């Protein structure tokens, strides 16, 4: 375990302690009667759980980390496909999504087989699921069903798997420290979400996207996004980047994360739901936490791979 990893672990611990203290103070002031404060405290408690699981997994090594991400992919895919109106004829396409796409995608990461990891889902799973759909002999809204399943797999499996994908890169001058970069990525993505929420609650006036995501505001996006970007710059010590490069990369993570969150909010609304699920108290489902990871992880992965390996 490197010094950088210990330092960011302590930073995370500090943030959670401060957040819990603020949550407790707000709880005392509102005497438990404010829904916003109760939801905030449920979220903070769940953050402790997620931080312990994620940090623990990364501490235990890449295999455990991959298993945790594979599990998160499966839970997100399950939430997505539970809401998506597939039919009983979609049994085999869904079977392939759950029992072929997820295990193989993560095993490829375990084998550090970058070439197949990068194309397995867009080439082979794209074909397999489409073939299975066609062979099922049900043409009722065939195109919509097939497209829904492929989109779900791209988001929940392909997108999410690129976050732990960082672990298989041979980054110049950064050997043995990849897990710090994974932590950097996850930290900025989630911190950006949290800070956008906080800035939105404190200063939010102008709605960013009233139809898709009514709680998001311009004040939240700009204030939270810029803060997360600057914190990303300050965290350059756990990356192979300089301060300014780390800031630019953090900006990419923040922008892709925010836009990805909007895309998945739109999907969620088109499926008639408010939350993806109810498995993480205060947050909703796994997909509610992974939404901003899905579109930013592959871009971050390829930026690192192109310029630093």
């Amino acid at each position: 375990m490197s010094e950088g990893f210990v330092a960011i672990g302590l930073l995370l611990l500090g943030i959670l302690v401060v957040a819990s203290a603020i949550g407790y103070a707000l709880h005392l002031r509102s005497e438990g009667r404010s829904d916003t404060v109760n939801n905030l405290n449920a979220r903070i408690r769940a953050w402790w759980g997620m931080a312990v699981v994620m940090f623990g997994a990364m501490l235990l090594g890449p295999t455990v980390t991959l298993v945790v991400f594979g599990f998160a992919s499966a839970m997100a895919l399950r939430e997505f496909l539970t809401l998506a109106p597939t039919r009983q004829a979609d049994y085999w396409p869904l079977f392939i999504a759950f029992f072929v796409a997820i295990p193989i995608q993560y095993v490829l990461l375990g084998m550090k087989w970058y070439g197949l990891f990068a194309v397995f889902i867009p080439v082979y799973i794209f074909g397999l699921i489409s073939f299975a759909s066609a062979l099922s002999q049900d043409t009722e809204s065939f195109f919509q069903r097939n497209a829904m399943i492929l989109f779900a797999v791209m988001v929940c499996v392909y997108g999410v798997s690129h976050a732990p994908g960082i672990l298989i890169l041979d980054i110049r001058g950064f050997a043995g420290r990849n897990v710090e970069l994974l932590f950097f990525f996850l930290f900025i993505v989630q911190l950006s979400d949290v800070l956008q929420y906080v800035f939105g609650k404190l200063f939010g006036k102008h709605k960013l996207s009233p139809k898709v995501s009514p709680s998001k505001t311009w004040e939240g996006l700009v204030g939270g996004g810029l803060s997360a970007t600057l914190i990303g710059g300050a965290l350059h010590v756990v990356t192979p980047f300089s301060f300014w490069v780390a800031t630019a990369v953090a900006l990419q993570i923040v922008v892709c994360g925010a836009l990805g969150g909007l895309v998945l909010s739109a999907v969620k609304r088109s499926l008639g739901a408010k939350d993806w699920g109810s498995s993480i108290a205060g947050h909703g489902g796994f997909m509610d936490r992974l939404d901003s990871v899905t579109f930013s992880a592959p871009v971050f992965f390829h930026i690192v791979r192109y310029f630093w390996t």
Partner: protein
Amino acid sequence: MNWFFQLQRDALLALVRVIVGASVLARQAPPAHTVIFSNHTSHLDTLVLLAALPHAQRNRTRPVAAADYWNAGTIRRYMARRILNVVMVDRSAGGAAALVPLEKALDEGWSLIVFPEGTRRQERLPGPFKTGLFHLTKTRPALALTPAYLENMYRVMPKGAPLPLPLLCRVRLGESMRNDSGEDKDAFLSRAHAAVCELADGKAAA
């Protein structure tokens, strides 16, 4: 049922909950003594309904199922007789004779789980109900009947599927009803059928 079989049952139901969720959506808990009737789309339905019941009620409830399916093979027979305490119905017997084991179980104080369609259906909404539910309750006007709707199970494990898909299934339980207003068979059965369909459309529960 002894503790050893109960433990196996609860372990099996815990596994079912891991795979399909089986969370309950109900305005009120079902009455203590009741016949739960539900749509039927997969071999897991019995387990999902049992998993959705609170533990105390689970111990008082017996699923009703076809003898020809559950007697085929050692594992199924073991599950049906020892673990799930199934009331076996002879589908070929037909008429009043087929209902005798159900009546006996009800009189002994058991609650029942029945699938009045009589067979699995591959669609969201249930098919027509067989007459058993009517005959069972005609002479028991005070017996509470609880409609249930299993979401998504037709997608989780359609006919011929080797493994269940891990999609989330919610069990919607409706308000209980009775066969106590002297309705004729068709009127009663269509009321019972409509109660399940309303749950499917999310009207009564939530």
